[in-house]
């Protein structure tokens, strides 16, 4: 599906969501509590069929978190960036997508340990890359560790 058609269809299916665009992708932004139903629609709707999630990124914007999902449809060849905004910095939570995309399982574990975002109903939410006794979430912008990090701007 070409870009215009995809955009129109997206607006039709998600009338309340906010859209933006850059040269490469259409960006669909949603809130963290709607993520499961949005992704389910994107995956199962016959016009979208986003079956391949190729990148999951956590971002820390100081007073909120964003999780960016890059989606592609291997059948129809179009791509979409989906952003989920998590407002609650003290207790960040979002539903897991690991039942929809198997690749999300390890990626979500990584985001969990790097940003401290809890993925609800994740089958196995543990530390992945860091030692088990590690404290703190190193990818957060306010992470401070004078022992291990030698700062250099």
């Amino acid at each position, binding site marked *: 599906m070409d870009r215009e058609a995809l955009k129109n269809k997206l607006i039709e299916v998600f009338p309340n969501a906010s859209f933006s665009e850059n040269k490469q992708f259409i960006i669909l932004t949603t809130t963290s509590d709607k993520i499961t139903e949005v992704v389910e629609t994107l995956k199962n709707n016959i016009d979208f069929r986003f079956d391949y999630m190729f990148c999951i*990124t956590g971002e820390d914007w100081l007073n909120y978190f964003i999780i960016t999902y890059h989606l592609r449809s291997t059948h129809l060849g179009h791509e979409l960036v989906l952003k989920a905004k998590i407002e609650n910095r003290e207790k960040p939570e979002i539903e897991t997508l690991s039942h929809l995309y198997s690749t999300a399982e*390890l990626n979500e574990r990584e985001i969990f340990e790097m940003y401290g975002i809890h993925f609800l109903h994740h089958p196995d939410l543990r530390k992945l890359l860091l030692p088990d006794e590690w404290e703190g979430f*190193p990818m957060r912008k306010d992470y401070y560790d004078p022992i291990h990090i030698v700062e250099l701007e």
Partner: protein
Amino acid sequence: MKIEAIDTSETKEYFINMGPQHPSTHGVLRLLLTLEGEIIKNVEPHIGYVHRAIEKMCEKSSFQQIIHLTDRLDYLSCHMNNEAVCLAVEQGLEMDVPERVKVIRTIIDELNRISSHTLWWGVMGMDMGAITSFLYGFREHEMITEIFEETCGARLTMSYNVPGGLMFDIPPNFQKMVKDFLFHFKKKLPEYDTLLSNNIIFTERTKGIGYLSKENAIAFGVTGPSARASGFACDVRKLKPYSAYHKVNFKEIIFTEGDCFARYKARIDEMWESVSIIEQLIDNIPEGDYFVKTKAVIKLPVGEYYQSVESARGEFGVYIVSDNKKNPYRVKFRSPGFANLSALNKIAQGCKIADLVAIMSTLDLVIPDIDR
């Protein structure tokens, strides 16, 4: 005294720790195997033994510095990794690099792919017990590193790309060196088949072992030759051509068997395709500049830039979020190894320990690429 009857027929699962230091994990990967006899019930990968915080470091580095860090991710396809960052930055700066740069980048990409695959072939043989193949694979790998060394001074971690072009121009004898190598390599590649592909023990150990279905490949995000062996057409060079790939004719190697032998064969055939790509380009390197002058401090406009390239292991993506400062706000590397590893448990269940070694070899894992 009470005598209890003990049921000796009971079988129990037991655990084995493979790694972090283990010859077949190709680095420091730790696998927790649940075994029943020699049959694998479950594989739980424990990673992070070379997690070097590269993504965090990128947030404190300038764009030129990031390139040097990507070398150390997947050091066997370092040039592709460099290129991904360069393309993302060039995309942000809306810069068009000269044709000469594109062609040279493509040639070095393919040379790098061949060098990675020859090394993979050697290590694959070694994992299967044929140690000699390791030495043969390394022979060709060394020849390519010599070309790299002559081109940019480094053997392994090249950092030959810079945003806007290349670090240096190619040396005057570059074309001759590459042609000499191709001449040699085209004679040696059939030898690879004689030693392993046609060996009955090898085919017995790989055919029908470690099946990965196309659906699973897509779900786990497996890319590269490993996914194309399952029938998933995911070659970024075809889907979203970058550099000079739109100018060359090549076949996307796709098998449908999805077993270890298909993954093996996909890589061997890919080497042939790489040879053909280089042959198409080596005589047609356009004249011109080898770089476009950029500012010393690169600042990308606010926004996000995603660029994926086809590295030797699959789709390597760079996702840069910029806030118009000299350092990026967030850099994420979509590493092919990470996704490929996540499928390991699915593939390996029900196989034997010896099969696991073959499966890991054919997935071609590079651990720093997984851990980042």
